[in-house]
């Protein structure tokens, strides 16, 4: 049955005009089209148009086996590739009640935290670039290369590694993994002070981000904004604390919360999270136990019939996998609850009555990754 759906034409008052930002635009990181209604320089309304990178992942998952789904989830939020894979592995392992070896848990936690640091490094690089400090881009990416080198050594790929499998890891880590990770931590602890001098301490940057894009805690909860964007408004939503997985109940780390809810708060949450991630890795890197890199799994993985929900904390927020299985080797339905999807929905609300330059700053502080929205 063919339905004709008329897109409502936004009403145009005197002196209002529309501007199209995207889908190709230097400051929307990915293919997102924003139709912004402006009155002079003030943003009156914002309509995001998604779907430019919709690949039909949920439909594909209905025909893919669980190990194959790992490769799909990599490409969903490509900056938290390891964490997305971790979600699928945990889903299968908890459903089948398999206990993975300690070594696997250590390595997975360390890799996840490295993933979080590298995602925040890229975020910082592009946030600085959007605001006009082009040098930040080069500094952020230069330091991120060190993490990518560590990954290339152990997993074989710099990006989109698909390293975890249900039951454990694809293969064991490189013998130099611990040494290189410790070198990286020592190096980055010095460099992050530079980041603070260039942006955090700069008066121009503070004026551009203080009191911009205010989001109260109730709004964050209602819109479902999680991750560093939600924690900048005081919404305590860290899945690692509330529903711990891997080794997060055994390491000591703080959940970073700021109460102001503006762009500067969201920025500071991410900067502090980089310190916390380094602290977590410090606690684990010297104690990786010996053992297998994978538990024994059957060749064909079939989840018993039922519904399963698995949550992990990706670099952007609360990633949820909702799986309905009917006992076959492919899920009947797999729904990805992605953090950027909910984070995008609040963009219209918090950028009312601000200027275009502020819109760019807010979009950068929410840290949207568009394939995460569109799947």
């Amino acid at each position, binding site marked *: 049955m063919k339905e004709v759906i008329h897109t409502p034409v936004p009403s145009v008052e005197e002196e209002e005009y529309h501007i199209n930002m995207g889908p190709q635009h230097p400051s929307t990181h990915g293919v997102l089209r924003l139709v912004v209604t402006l009155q002079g320089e003030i943003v009156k309304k914002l309509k995001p148009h998604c779907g430019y990178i919709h690949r039909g992942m949920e439909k594909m998952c209905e025909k893919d086996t669980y190990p194959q789904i790992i490769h799909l989830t990599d490409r969903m939020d490509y900056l938290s590739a390891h964490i997305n894979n971790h979600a699928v592995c945990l889903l299968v392992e908890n459903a089948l009640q398999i206990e993975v070896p300690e070594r696997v848990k250590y390595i997975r936690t360390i890799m996840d935290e490295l993933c979080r640091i590298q995602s925040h490094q890229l975020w910082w690089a592009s946030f600085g670039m959007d605001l006009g400090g082009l040098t930040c881009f080069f500094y952020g990416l230069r330091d991120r290369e060190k993490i990518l080198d560590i990954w290339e050594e152990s997993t074989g790929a710099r990006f989109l590694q698909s390293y975890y499998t249900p039951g454990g890891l694809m293969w064991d880590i490189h013998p130099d993994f611990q040494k290189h990770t410790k070198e990286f931590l020592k190096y980055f602890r010095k460099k992050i002070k530079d980041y603070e001098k260039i942006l955090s301490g700069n008066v121009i940057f503070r004026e551009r981000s203080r009191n911009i894009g205010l989001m109260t805690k109730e709004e964050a909860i209602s819109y479902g904004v999680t991750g560093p964007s939600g924690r900048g408004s005081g919404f305590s939503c860290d899945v690692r604390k509330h529903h711990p997985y891997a080794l997060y109940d055994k390491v000591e780390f703080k959940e970073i919360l700021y109460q102001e809810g503006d762009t500067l708060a969201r920025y500071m949450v991410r900067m502090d999270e980089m310190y916390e991630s380094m602290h977590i890795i410090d606690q684990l890197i010297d104690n990786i136990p010996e053992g297998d890199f994978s538990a024994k799994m059957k060749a064909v993985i079939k989840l018993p019939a039922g519904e399963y929900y698995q949550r992990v904390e990706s670099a952007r927020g609360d990633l949820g996998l909702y799986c309905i299985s009917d006992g076959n080797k492919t899920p009947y339905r797999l729904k990805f609850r992605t953090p950027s999807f909910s984070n995008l929905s609040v963009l219209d609300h918090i950028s009312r009555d601000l200027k*275009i*330059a502020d819109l760019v700053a807010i979009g950068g502080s929410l840290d949207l990754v568009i394939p995460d929205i569109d799947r």
Partner: protein
Amino acid sequence: MASNIYDTFVASITQWIHSGLYNLLPPTWALIVELTIIGLVFLLFYALVGLFLVYAERKVCAFMQNRVGPNRVGLYGIFQTIADFIKLLMKELVVIKNSDKLLFTLAPFIVIIASFMAIAAIPFAKGLHAIDFDIGILYVIAVSSLGVIGVLLAGWSSNNKYSLIGAMRSGAQIISYELSVGMSLLTIIILAGTMQFSELVQGQEYGWFIFKGHIHAIIAFLVYLVASTAETNRGPFDLAEAESELTAGFHTEYSGIKFAFFFLAEYMNMFIVASIGATVFLGGWMPFHVWGWSGFNQVMDYIPPSIWYIGKTGFIIFLMMWFKWTFPRLRIDQLLTLEWKYLLPINLFNILLMAFIVLMGWHF
């Protein structure tokens, strides 16, 4: 006395050309030929300096960003800009359907002419300048203000929302900051007592104005640095061409040689404001002299005045490039707030104080 050896060198060449022409041709023709030669020399100078500045910016920015910059075309990439300009010359001149064609073509020329006229008054060495008005500084400020007309015309005639927004922002910015530039220069004019460029430089014989005028000259210099960066649309004040926000601002619709004109004019404007700053605050072509140390002064005189001039201008240009690649951008309202609520009152106060100090004789 300042550099005798080099003065005679420059004076003798100009004298030789002058007398040669007047001997060969009737007076009117000689005048015309002389003026044409000067014009051509300036055009060449303009083009060469522009070329060099573009290359310098790319190299300076590359080193700050931990990379190398152009290094393929020629030794250390020195011919990179020439390659860029050849490319720009060969690009298609896209004609916009509903634009005002006359204004569209005219806009880049106005910007170039404004900056060209300003270069004419600046002294590069003793006696080496095209014109020496006795209202030198006033002339330069007035003429560089003409550039804003070109910017506004470019934005308007492009028939494009983005260009219009960019041009309006740019126009507001330039007009606001001209006030600050003018007033900080006024502070030094009060100290020096003259607006003529050659007198200004001569007056700095026993110490540059930035040292003579101590605190107030330093304040004026800092205000001048900030205001001139803003006036040339550079550095943290480059909203008009903010690439990450609204494409390329007022010159979005320009391509090929016309875009090259805007690009060149931006670098030449930077050169002009740096030259004026160097001449007024840092002594122009006058070497670094200290009152009473005549031996030291003699040694300083051995370095040619043009080298001094280029060194000082280069230093200010380096500062401006440093600003651009370090700081994030200001928003339009923050920019205008900075001017009207902070720089302007500081300037007014500074002028009053400087006048008081000159009256009381409390300067060096």
